[in-house]
C-alpha cells in the first residue's frame, strides 16, 4: 500500500511540471528559435489570463464543485474596465474587482441556499454574463479611451524577460497555496472537497466556505479581465478573453486539480496554465492546423480529467 502510493504522490507533486517541461523541450527541439526569440514572454503573456481564471476555478474544484461562469465573468470584467477606465481612472480596476467578486459571491449564495448542482447554476450565470456583456457593449468593441496606463504596465514592464502580470499571478498562486495549507478556512475547503458531510459534522462552516470559494473564483476572474484589457486595450463580447473557459479548466486539471474535490495545488496550476498556453505553439510546431486548436483544448481537457480522476470513492458517476 505504502509502496504503491508513493509514486502516486510523486506524480501528483511533480506531474504537471514534468508534463510542461516535456512539451517545452519538444518545442525547443522542433522550433529552436522559440526560446531565443521572445517566445517565453509571449507564452507567459498568454498564460496569465488562463492562469488567473484557473486559480479561481481550482478553488471551486477543491470543494468538489465547478464554476462554468468564471470565464464569462472575466470577459465581463474586461468590458467593465474598458468602460470605466476613462471616467474612474485608477479606481476603475478596484470597482471592477468588487463587482465581479460580488457576482461570484452571488453565485455561492444562490448555490448554498437552493442546493442545486453548481454546474447547472453556473451554466445559467454564464448565459446571464454573456447577455450582460452584449447589452453593456451594445454588441460592439469597447476601446479604452483614457487612463490606459492604469493597467498598461502589467504587460509592458518585464521582470526576467517575463511580464510583471505573470509574476503577480505566480505570487497569487503561491499565496493561494499557502492559504489552502496553512489557514483554517483553507483546510476547511479541502475537507469539504474530500468529505463534505464529515466537514459539516466537524463544525466547518460549509456554506460560508462554499460562498468564499465562488467569491474567490469571481475575484480571480476579475484579475484575468484586467489582464485582458491591459493586453488588448479593448474589449468585446467575442474578442480576446471570450474563449477562456475550456483552456482554464484544462489548466486547472493538467495542474493536478481533481474534479472530485480536495486535491488542489495552485502552484502546479501555474505549470498547467503554461502547458495550455504552449498548446498553440506546440500544435503549430508539429504541423497541426491552428484552427484545430480548440480540438486540442477539448481533448486535453478530457484526457486530463480522465487521467487525474480518482474513481475509488465513487460508485456512480453521472
Amino acid at each position, binding site marked *: 500500500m505504502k509502496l504503491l502510493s508513493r509514486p502516486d504522490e510523486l506524480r501528483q507533486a511533480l506531474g504537471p511540471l514534468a508534463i510542461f517541461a516535456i512539451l517545452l523541450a519538444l518545442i525547443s527541439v522542433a522550433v529552436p528559435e522559440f526560446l531565443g526569440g521572445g517566445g517565453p514572454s509571449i507564452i507567459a503573456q498568454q498564460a496569465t489570463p488562463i492562469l488567473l481564471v484557473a486559480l479561481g476555478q481550482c478553488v471551486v474544484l477543491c470543494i468538489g464543485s465547478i464554476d462554468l461562469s468564471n470565464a464569462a465573468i472575466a470577459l465581463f470584467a474586461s468590458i467593465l474596465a474598458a468602460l470605466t477606465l476613462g471616467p474612474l481612472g485608477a479606481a476603475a480596476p478596484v470597482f471592477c474587482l468588487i463587482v465581479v467578486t460580488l457576482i461570484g459571491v452571488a453565485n455561492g449564495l444562490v448555490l448554498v441556499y437552493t*442546493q442545486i448542482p453548481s454546474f447547472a447554476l453556473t451554466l445559467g450565470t454564464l448565459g446571464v454574463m454573456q447577455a*450582460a456583456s452584449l*447589452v453593456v457593449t451594445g454588441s460592439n468593441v469597447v476601446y479604452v479611451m483614457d487612463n490606459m496606463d492604469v493597467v498598461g504596465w502589467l504587460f509592458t514592464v518585464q521582470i526576467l524577460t517575463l511580464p510583471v502580470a505573470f509574476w503577480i499571478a505566480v505570487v497569487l498562486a503561491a499565496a493561494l497555496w499557502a492559504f489552502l495549507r496553512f489557514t483554517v478556512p483553507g483546510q476547511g475547503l479541502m475537507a469539504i472537497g474530500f468529505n463534505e*458531510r464529515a466537514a459539516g459534522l466537524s463544525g466547518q462552516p460549509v456554506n460560508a466556505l462554499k460562498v468564499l470559494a465562488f467569491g474567490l473564483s469571481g475575484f480571480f476572474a476579475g484579475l484575468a479581465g484586467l489582464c485582458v484589457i491591459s493586453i488588448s486595450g479593448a474589449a468585446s463580447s467575442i474578442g480576446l478573453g471570450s474563449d477562456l473557459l475550456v483552456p482554464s479548466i484544462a489548466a486547472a486539471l493538467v495542474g493536478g486539480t481533481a474534479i472530485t474535490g480536495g486535491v488542489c495545488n495552485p502552484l502546479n496550476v501555474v505549470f498547467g496554465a503554461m502547458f495550455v498556453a504552449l498548446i498553440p505553439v506546440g500544435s503549430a510546431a508539429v504541423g497541426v492546423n491552428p484552427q484545430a486548436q480548440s*480540438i486540442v483544448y477539448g481533448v486535453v481537457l478530457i484526457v486530463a480529467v480522465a487521467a487525474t480522476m480518482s474513481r475509488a470513492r465513487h460508485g456512480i458517476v453521472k
Partner: protein
Amino acid sequence: MTSLSETGSGGAARRRGLAARAGLAELAILLALVAIFSVLNPHAFPTLTNLNTILNNAAIPIVIGVGASLVVLTGRIDLSVEGVMGAAGMAFVLLSANSRETADIGWLAYPAALAVGAVLGGTTGAIHALAKVPSFIVSLGMWYVGLGIAAVLFGYEMIPFLGNEAAVAWPTATPLGLPNSFVLALVVVGLGWLIERYTRLGRYAYAIGNNESVARMTGIPVAGFVVAIFAFAGACSALAGVMGSLALGAGSATVGVGMLFLTLAAIVIGGTPLGGGRGGALRTVTGVLILSTLYNGLILVGVDPSIQSGVSGVVLVAAVIAAGWSQRARLRVFK
C-alpha cells in the same frame, strides 16, 4: 435518514399527482404567455406570420431537445450540442452541392451528417461511461472538439454557400400550413416519443434516471445504454445542425450558437429535472414553445434581442431551483 427522505419524496410525488404528470402547468404557462403578449402587442404578436416565425424558431431546439431530454432522463447532461451542430452542419454543407465545390454526394450528405453527430455523441458517452468521467465535463470537452472540427472544415477559404436553392427554401415553406422545419421537428418528437414509450432504450433511460444503483442490481447494462443514448442525442444535434445550415443557406462553425442554453432551459422548464427519471420529449416541446414565445414576445415588445442567452440562463436556474426545492435539507451534499 434515507427512509425518511424516501417517504418524504414519495408523498411529494403523490401530491404532484396527475396534473404534473400531464404537464398541464407548463401548458398553462404557455397559454398565459400567449395571452399576455397578445394583449401587449395585438397587431404584431397574434398573427399567422408571427406564429410561423415562432414555430420555425422552435424547430431546431425541439430537435435537439428530443435527444438531450433522453440524456437528461438518465441523469446525465450533454453540453456538446453547439459543437456537434457546428461539426455536422459543416460536414453536411461540404458534402452537398456548394459554392466551394468540395464534394456533392447528394442526399447521402444527410445520413453522413447524422453519422458525424452520432459518432461524436457516442464518443462522449463512451468516454463518460467507460472512463467514469462526469458527463458534463466530457461533453464540455466535446463541445470544443466539435467546434474545432467545424473550424478545420471551414478552413481559410470563403464561406461555402449551399447550391441547392430548393433545399434552402424548404424549412420555411408552409405547404402543410406550418413551416416544414416545425413539421420535421414534430416527426422527430414522434420518433422520440416512440423510443421513450415503446423501446427498452427509452424505458431503461427512465429506470436509470430513477435509481441507477437499482438499475445495476437489476442487471441493466447501464454503460451500453448510456452510450447509445448519447449517440442518439448526437444524431439529433447533427440534424439540428443540418437544419441550421439550411436556414443559413451556408456553412458556419457557429451555427448552433445559443442553442445549448435554450435547449437545457426548455428541458428543465418543460418538466424533465436534471436528476432524471421524469419527463421526456413531449414535455420538452412545451418547454421550447414557452421559451420561443417568450423571446418572440419580448423582442416584439422592444427588448434588446441580445439578452436572449441571459433569459435562458435565468429560466434554466429558476427551473432547476423549482424542481429541486423540496429536496433541500440540512447536511445535504450538493456539488
